[in-house]
């Protein structure tokens, strides 16, 4: 992916602000979406991600701020004066029209010949893996198939921007996973700039080139899936993505922190000595005895397993840590590790923290 600034963005949002009465839905949103990339707006419900997408689509009007698409200011343009295709959670297929007519809906309006339209419809239905379904009606298809048709309809007019509003939320788990891969492959192949709104972090992390994590109407962090997961810049992002242990600590200066009676070493995050902070650490950011003698490693700890939650291919162990003075941690264990290390409730579990993974945030946040 090219660095921001190298390519002209397909879409630029500048200081987008949206208020519904006294409720502020979005505040000073700045974002550039580059050509061909898939950007996910991710956040809990009510964070403003859908509102932001609807502002891009012109279905809502921002209170202030500018929307620029391909160099054209479309801040006040009507939806029909913008250039995008959109897919909604509800598919929004016209129930009384055949699949062919649904896909051709936007083409007919452009005074194309019938043969040309038929050719294009065929091409699109093949593209989404549903050739020869043109004569069917939406009600004859499964949810996943309907969503593929909605995608074909949105792509039919070759828009420069594709908007996906929680496109997979109405589908069952298996179908969702399959379509996730298909949409991603299709998007890569067509290189169509895409914005997808989702509340499903797994979906965002697995599909996006860049994830925009939102909360309470502001952007918390923008980054690649790996960046936002491994280097969250705010406690919210650390908390919202995946699981995280939060430990109350005091900064001792020079990258040293005290949790309970234990000292933890981690590359300094800029906290001053004496400052009360919280350490954020994911369950998998630990080293276990199967890789060597953990007792001699930096940040070595002794724990006692209090409870084990079995979750399929892995387990999460709730561990009381000696010297943490009541602050328990959740530790990730593969199923194999559970067997090999003899982890069971009540047993001792020595482990070491990966100090370089620890994120430090001030306690007030």
């Amino acid at each position, binding site marked *: 992916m090219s660095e921001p600034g190298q390519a002209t963005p397909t879409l630029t949002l500048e200081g987008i602000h949206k208020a519904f009465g006294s409720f502020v839905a979005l505040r000073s949103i700045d974002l550039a979406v580059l050509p061909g990339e898939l950007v996910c707006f991710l956040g809990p419900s009510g964070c403003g991600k859908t509102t932001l997408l609807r502002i891009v689509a012109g279905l809502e009007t921002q209170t202030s701020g500018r929307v620029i698409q391909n160099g054209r200011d479309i801040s006040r343009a009507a939806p029909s004066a913008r250039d995008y295709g959109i897919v909604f959670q509800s598919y929004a297929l016209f129930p*009384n*029209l055949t699949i062919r007519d649904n896909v051709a809906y936007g083409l007919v309006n452009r005074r194309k010949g019938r043969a040309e339209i038929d050719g294009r419809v065929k091409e699109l239905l093949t593209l989404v893996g549903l050739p020869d379904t043109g004569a069917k009606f939406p*009600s004859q298809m499964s949810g996943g198939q309907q969503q593929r048709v909605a995608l074909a309809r949105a792509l039919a007019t070759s828009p420069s921007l594709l908007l996906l509003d929680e496109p997979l939320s109405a589908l069952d788990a298996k179908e969702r996973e399959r379509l996730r891969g298909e949409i991603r492959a299709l998007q890569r192949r067509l290189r169509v700039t895409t914005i997808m709104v989702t509340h499903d972090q797994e979906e965002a992390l697995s599909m996006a080139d860049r994830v925009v994590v939102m909360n309470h109407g502001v952007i918390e962090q923008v980054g690649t899936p790996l960046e936002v997961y491994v280097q969250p810049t705010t406690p919210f992002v650390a908390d919202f993505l995946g699981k995280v242990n939060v430990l109350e600590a005091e900064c001792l200066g020079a990258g040293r922190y005290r949790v309970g009676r234990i000292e933890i070493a981690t590359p300094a995050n800029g906290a001053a000595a004496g400052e009360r902070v919280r350490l954020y650490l994911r369950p998998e950011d630990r080293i276990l005895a199967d890789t060597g003698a953990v007792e001699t490693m930096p940040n070595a700890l002794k724990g006692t397993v209090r409870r084990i939650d079995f979750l399929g291919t892995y387990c999460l162990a709730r561990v009381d840590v000696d010297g943490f003075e009541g602050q328990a941690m959740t530790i990730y264990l593969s199923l194999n590790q559970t067997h090999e290390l003899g982890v069971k409730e009540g047993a001792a579990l020595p482990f070491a923290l990966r100090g370089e993974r620890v994120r430090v945030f001030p306690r007030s946040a």
Partner: protein
Amino acid sequence: MSATASAGFLVGSKRRRWGEWLAARGGIVLLFTALLVFLALPLAMLFVRSVEDKAGATVGLANFAQYLASPGFAFSATHTLIFAALTTAITVPLAFGFAFAIQRTCIPLKPMWRNIALIPILAPSMLAALSFIYLFGNQGALKFVLGWFGLATVYGLPGMVLAMTFASFPHAVMILLAALSLSDARLYEAAASLGTPEWRKFMTITLPGARYGLISATMVVFTMAVSEFGVPKVIGGNYGVLAMDIYKQVIGQQNFNIGAVVGLVLLVPAVVAYAIDQAVRGRQQALLSARSVPYAPRPAAGRDRSALAYVLVVSVVMLVVMGMAAFGSFVRVWPYNLSPTLNHYIYAFEEMGVDRAYRNSLVMAFSCAVLGAAITFAGAYWLEKTRGADALRPLVRVQAMMPMAVPGLVLGIGYILFFNHPDNPLNTLYGTMAILVASTIVHFYSSSHLTALTALKQLDNEFESVSASLKVPFYKTFGRVTVPVCLPTVIDISRYYFVNAMTTISAVVFLYSPKTTLVSISIVKLDEAGAVGSAAAVATLIVATSAAITVASLLAEGWLLRRTQAWRRLAAPA
């Protein structure tokens, strides 16, 4: 398509986008203006004229003082309340039993019983009054029955209550059928698992679950009775009610100012009942969650047998009342000479001008069916699915629901006061067919509007958004998707307007001219002339016409759905 091609397209479509912008706002502005002229301003005139004297000078509340102090008012008001209260007290329990039998027992032939209960909708309310005159009137075959109850005559309160019960029964049944269809089987299962006897389930689950429906039915029946004109006119005798006062003041004495006062007085109970009904309807919907499991009754021999007996008795009475007027219209002199004749019809058509009235009624009913359905549906669509003109939208919403709270008579007087005013440029409408059509569409607007809204709310909200993204103007999607998908609803609305236009009398009785007289008005005139047989003949004719159109439109609807709507019957693969 390349980026340049789509850019070129955007420039070329500028004019059309402007047209779309205008269409979205224009529709709302038009609807607002139409409702203002044909509803809000006429009603406002009631207030203006009620505080003026005949010469147009402002007299404050003198008219109110004069009318409210008159001995006639005390009588009429008391009579109206007694009449409405008795009717409500009889109709609602009867209808509840009927609806309960259909929704909560396992009797056979439920659709048939339901349809029989709804038959009175096809008839003008005067029909029941005529039937009861045939049955219990001075020459009534069953007049002796009155003696059992210590009554000397059916004219007056007893006849009014009987006829009104018949006329309002289907409205109460419809509300209660809907209320009793909403139920959560899990409550009954929980009660059964706790060993609750049937009567206690009824008292603690069924009745509370239907309480909003009961209140709503009570308000609807009460309002109908309070503002009813046809029934007291035909069978009321000397039992004066407010509706008759208005008629006498306006038609008899041409005293529009007092008429306006009585209209406002009549508006009070109607508005109060409406407010209660509205408050209650919202709660009924909140009663059930999306997770509720619908209740399906299981056979219970004793309960089912008594329910069937009850439904059978009520249905037979309905059919007898309905058939009595028809039968009376085809015999020479009920009950003395029962030889068949068409004389009552011939007299009505040849001597009393019913031929013209019938033609007028058909023209009006078809106009209402076509225009009313088009305006109501398009109006609801514009309100629900387009954007822009946001300041006007709440005003349009309020006006769309107002007719439900306004009795037809009150609307009618408002129309006279407003459209008959010499300074009103629209006064050329007075006495025309157009004003009859307008008043009828407005009078029945609210229910139709609600029906249209319900259908539109079931459509995906994003159809318009998708269309916009595909550069298809919303009105094309309206024609290509919305109307075809909602076609059954549009036809239902159309049928509702037709039937009501055929049977209504309350607003139009003030607005017809000799050229535009209607069949429902002919009943009143024939009855006044003492030609009860001919009045019954005309009432029968109305029922036959309404029924024929209803059946024809149902058949046409079925045919149309089979022909053009294959998509409805196709289900998703299992």
